[in-house]
């Protein structure tokens, strides 16, 4: 199928392109940007007037809840959410039930996701069996089944000997290790940032030192093991400083931040709003501002949705008992745009944080509109503003702290491998 996308502003951060241009797609790949290839006869045409044409978004953290939590979300519902959010590639953490610790499970997930309307799924395999932190998984087999990295989702490997060996083993094959930095002892029982708000509301706190202690451990071990480390959902200024220092010391480390931590802070808990119950917790204003600056200057490599569909039963509980997490696939683009506008980060640079940069972290040839690459494309209207409502959200998870807010940008079309996966409802 040959498609032309006409009259749009093409922004391709990976190739330094930001211009008014037409884009041509043939056989699921980018055929040309600007001038029509010779002999190109479009079978379909998309009018992108007033819109931006960019690479499909690459999300480093999207929980699809399959297998095991189908009552919270299904592959179908979450893939519809991804397409509606302009997300064409996503990495999913291994905290399914059972966890992604066996090749068969990964193959099943990849197989189920192999529909033309579905975003490319890149599973993060479990680093240890059952995420239990004791026995290594068959990483090489899992990689053959489709895993692109190995991690523990939000759990940790308590035993540092096991952790070092897991990193060494992953490093043997060159597999990246993705870890969340939160010491489980210092964070025990905590549900909110251990600061002013938690003190006032009487919520058990998770101190920043829970993040920095864990970071110190995993940064050191990664260095010793020679593993490529990706720190997921960094939440504090102090943690970010450590990542920065480690990188300058030559340690191969990347990190991401979630849309929630980019925009919200402990004050957004308000009067015990369970929507603000997130893991890691929302931290102070100063922490949030440091993360925003870090994302702008590249200390933070990528912005992710940390998409975690939680059903109403999980959220309609007292703050401490509410399940952590929020839906996010459909909000990644709007919240990136909001940050770009507020922090005065040029759009192309901001877009890189959700396209080419996360693709680089994943080691993928994605997040670009380079000729010959897969035609994963997002066309969005940057001027449109939409209100986040339960009705509009396609994700089965209807809970997000951004409910009711008006956010910039609206996706018009999403193409995955040149296939129109999302177009506006008529």
């Amino acid at each position, binding site marked *: 199928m040959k498609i032309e996308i006409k009259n749009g502003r093409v922004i391709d951060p990976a190739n330094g392109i930001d211009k008014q241009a037409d884009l041509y797609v043939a056989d699921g790949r980018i055929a040309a940007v600007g001038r029509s290839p010779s002999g190109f006869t479009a079978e379909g045409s998309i009018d992108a007037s007033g819109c931006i044409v960019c690479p499909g978004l690459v999300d480093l953290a999207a929980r699809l809840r399959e297998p095991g939590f189908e009552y919270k979300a299904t592959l179908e519902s979450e893939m519809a959410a991804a397409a509606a959010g302009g997300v064409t590639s996503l990495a999913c953490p291994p905290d399914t039930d059972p966890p992604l610790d066996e090749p068969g499970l990964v193959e099943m997930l990849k197989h189920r996701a192999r529909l033309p309307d579905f975003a490319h799924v890149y599973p993060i395999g479990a680093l240890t069996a059952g995420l239990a932190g004791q026995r290594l998984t068959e990483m090489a087999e899992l990689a053959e089944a489709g895993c692109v990295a190995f991690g523990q989702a939000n759990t940790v490997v308590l035993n540092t000997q096991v952790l070092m060996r897991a990193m060494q083993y992953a490093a043997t094959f060159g597999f990246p290790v993705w870890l969340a930095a939160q010491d489980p002892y210092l964070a025990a029982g905590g549900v909110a940032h*251990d*600061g*002013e708000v*938690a*003190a*006032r*509301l*009487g*919520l*058990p*706190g998770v*101190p920043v030192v829970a993040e920095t202690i864990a970071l110190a451990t995993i940064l050191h071990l990664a260095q010793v093991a020679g593993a490529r480390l990706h720190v997921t959902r960094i939440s504090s200024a102090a943690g970010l400083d450590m990542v920065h220092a480690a990188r300058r010391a030559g340690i191969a480390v990347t990190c991401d931040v979630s849309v929630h931590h980019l925009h919200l802070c402990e004050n*957004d808990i*308000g*009067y*015990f*709003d*369970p*929507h*603000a119950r997130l893991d890691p917790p929302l931290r102070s204003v100063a922490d949030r501002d440091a993360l925003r600056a870090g994302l702008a200057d590249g200390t933070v490599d990528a912005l992710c949705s940390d998409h975690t569909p939680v059903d109403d*039963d999980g*959220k*309609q*509980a*007292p*703050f*401490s*008992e*509410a399940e952590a997490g929020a839906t996010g696939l459909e909000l990644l683009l709007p919240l990136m745009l909001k940050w770009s506008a507020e922090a005065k980060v040029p759009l192309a640079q901001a877009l890189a944080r959700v396209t080419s940069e996360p693709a680089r972290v994943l080691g993928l040839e994605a997040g670009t509109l380079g000729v010959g690459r897969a035609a994963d494309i997002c066309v969005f209207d940057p001027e449109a503003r939409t209100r986040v409502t339960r009705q509009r959200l396609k994700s089965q998870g209807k809970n997000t*702290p951004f*409910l*009711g807010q008006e956010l910039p940008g609206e996706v018009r079309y999403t193409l995955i491998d040149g296939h129109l996966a999302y177009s506006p409802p008529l």
Partner: protein
Amino acid sequence: MNHDNPQLNKNGELQHLLTLDGLPREIIMSILDNAAPFTEVAEREVKKVPLLRGKSVFNLFFENSTRTRTTFEIAAKRLSADVINLNINTSSTAKGETLLDTVDNLAAMQADMFVVRHASSGAPYLIAQHLRNIGADHIRVVNAGDGRHAHPTQGLLDMYTIRHYKKDFTGLTCAIVGDVLHSRVARSQIHALKTLGVPDIRVVGPKTLLPTGVEHMGVRVFHDMREGLRGADVVMMLRLQNERMNGALLPSPQEYFKYYGLTPDKLELAKPNAIVMHPGPMNRGVEIDSAVADGGQAVILPQVTFGIAVRMAVMSMLGAGN
């Protein structure tokens, strides 16, 4: 987002009593003023007034506390309300859906007021917000203690007690001693003392029992109890829960008593006319010496008496809007 304080209505009037944080001075003072006539009711032959006649007050205790439940029950009964006590075991089905299911059921039984005790901070907010969502916001919620967050009627009765003995708040030094970290009572006391203009509020305790950033709540922090009590007009002791006495927070009740227990010699550092308060039940020989608890400066039993009157005032004021 839940960023509107649900305890005040659009006109700034008390809709529920959930916390003393941000409760305007005028409302606190009017509760204290309204409590005064109720102290007299308790002293007569028929200890009952008809203010809440025909109203149904549900004591929803998701966390056991016979003592607190009893004080609310007495207060409601002296206002002529019908009182229904529900002790809901949270350990069996400790999920929010049960909590809100319970609320739905009781709302359908034409409840007029919920007195809520819950182990999780913020649970009464969830209930108040839910009542609004289901169009049952005529039902009033009184927080009888939620997690570590707030115990507003205790805070109010403490203010009533202080006013009774000290008349004026604006020149006082008040020391709150003990496990502030886990204490909803301490948080409510601090907010009320600040709102009422107490210039010197102190918290005294080991670092393990003080919340991070407690100084942002407008208090001075002391780790040495003798320094913390020096010149105090009011000494407010906190209860130390049994499960916190031996472990990572404190090595032993004996060592705690030695350094943070209120003994006659430590009390001597406070002003000669200082009063000693305790929310009860006391751990004698842990946070307070019997010689102090039973001594002339202790006002612990008057606190209990005033507590009934203050709870009557709160319930009648909330019931009045129905």
